[in-house]
């Protein structure tokens, strides 16, 4: 290919027509409460791994919903379970992350 001396950046647009939500659908079977998230951010605000590791369960759930793989974020989770205490929708967040990690192990 001809080298023009520059490259094109990939579009950052979330295209829901092409989003691959298979990971969400697999997790949803194990953790139906996943649907209850209203993106309030309580989990991320209480997270011990947020500041240094960049963990945010809110972002993990959002990524899954929009068809992006949140693996790099999840890897920072220490499974301390503090987020479970603060979720106003009563989602068992620690168990949700555990189930997601199990899906990754099976991959």
């Amino acid at each position, binding site marked *: 290919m001809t080298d023009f001396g520059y490259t094109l950046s990939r579009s*950052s*647009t*979330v*295209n*829901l*027509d092409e989003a691959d939500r298979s990971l969400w659908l697999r997790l949803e079977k194990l953790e*139906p*409460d996943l*649907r*209850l998230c*209203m*993106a309030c951010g309580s989990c991320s605000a209480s997270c011990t791994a947020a500041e240094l590791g960049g963990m945010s369960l*809110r972002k993990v759930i*959002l990524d899954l*919903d*929009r068809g992006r793989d949140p693996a790099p974020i999840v890897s920072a989770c220490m499974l301390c379970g503090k987020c479970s205490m603060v979720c106003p*929708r009563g989602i068992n967040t620690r168990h949700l992350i555990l189930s997601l990690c199990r899906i990754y192990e099976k991959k």
Partner: protein
Amino acid sequence: MKENVIILGGGIAGMEAARQLLLLGERPVIVERADHLGGHVADWHRLFPDKSPAEDLLEGLRPGLEGAEIHLGTTVSSLNALKDGYNLTLSDGSKLHGRALLFATGFELFAAERKEEYGYGIYNQVITNRDLERWFNTGKDSRLSGRPLSKIGFVHCVGSRDLKAGNPQCSKVCCMTAIKQAIELKERFPFAEVYCFYMDLRLFGKKYEDFYIGAQRDWGIHFIRGRVSEVAETLDGRVVVKAEDTLSGRPLKVSLDLLVLMAGMLPNPSATALARQIRLDVDDDGFLRSRDNLAGIIASNRPGVFYAGACTGTKTVPETLAEARSAALAIHNYLQDAK
């Protein structure tokens, strides 16, 4: 002989007020511009929060109106304040006099074509909340027939919370209506993906939040925080909708078979025009100004003039009915005191 209590508007506010006035021994006269009673509720299929048929509500109000004088298909040509009440000339040439006057003039639905970027009136795939209710009622809408509906979107706040559209206030019923309609479409098309585009969800009333939780948990409806910025038709006869996914901080697009615009509530311009004829205060938002926004919602700045329902601002059905009852009692007391 009892004096007339003139009620402008035969929607649910006017109907309920007339019903209560009759029970109180007064003589209500309803003036309604449409050829039927019921106002916007008559256009609706089911009402939140229980998804009860709108027709049931009207059916419950109608029997109580026996004995009320009702002028259908009639508008008010002129309104004068006299020393002892108000004088009206109606569009059919007849005249009415009453010591008490109730504005039950309601609201006007925002004309969705004014938000041209959403494509209402341009694309067949774009309809309004009212069009959808009518379709639920009649099953007839040429825009909806013969097309599979596998992806459906709802746009919240169309003509509400929109300074540029001249309408800064929240219409407050649309969040709940959108969720109700989204669920109703899922009931008809269980395999459809349904997306709600919102700025924030205002689910303040009894059972509203439960509806939202149910929409997520039981129906898998997607909620995307971001206001739709533009809509365009695609080659395959869908519309592509663009918004910012503000939770991701990225632009987002999705193509849809149907887009429902949640048109908001505007002040009724004919009510404003009538109010000016007798120097009633009009608020900054264009709705009629109550004497007091806490304890005097149904009172005006003029003796003998009362308000009920959405003429003073956006209202839910139960709020409207409660104000109608309250206004009926206030009118009854007003007429008693003056004796």
